[in-house]
């Protein structure tokens, strides 16, 4: 089962690299923030899988939760900043 979790986390990190393409190429900067948000989503799953590998899941859950919250707030703040009038 550990090998399965290891391959799963490798696949998730490959998917992160895949969605990095849009961050590099993306014509508008909103594309870039979307791909960074997508990478953030995958990082939450990756963190928990690593927690399973290290057999210390209860520590990694807090890290994943904080990461999810910060990723969400970052996206919101970018949305507010990106709009000229600053009204959400």
């Amino acid at each position, binding site marked *: 089962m550990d090998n399965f979790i290891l391959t799963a986390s490798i696949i998730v990190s490959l998917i992160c690299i895949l969605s990095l393409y849009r961050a590099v190429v993306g014509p508008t900067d909103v594309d870039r923030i*979307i791909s960074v948000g997508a990478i953030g989503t995958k990082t939450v799953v990756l963190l928990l899988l690593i927690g399973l590998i290290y057999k210390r899941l209860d520590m990694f859950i807090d890290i994943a939760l904080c990461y999810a919250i910060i990723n969400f707030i970052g996206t919101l703040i970018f949305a*507010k900043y990106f709009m000229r009038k600053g009204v959400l």
Partner: protein
Amino acid sequence: MNPIEIISAILISVGIFFLFAGTVGLIRLPDLYCRMHSTGKADTLGITISLTGIALYNLNDGVTLVSVLVSLKIMTIAVFWFIANPTATHAIARSAYESGIKPWTKEGTVEVDLDEQRAKEQK
């Protein structure tokens, strides 16, 4: 491989498939809003399914109070992300539209005049 491990393995792989589907949409779709549409939905579903798989796998070595609470904490991440991701996508889509990024149509971007549209709404 007892049944709990098999079920959680299936759930994790299905969740990763949906994460992959969201990324494919992010790369291939033509327009900003289509990409937002695909990542917003597919990633949320991918996270929910894979987190339930991980939470289930956590109950593998004996269902004590501690492991149940840990699994519930994992599910709170899934629920939080279920609420937070659509909100973030909505905020981004609204701010992108307000600042004048036009949605894509078959013959290229449609010319939507914001002020005239708002005037119509006021009427």
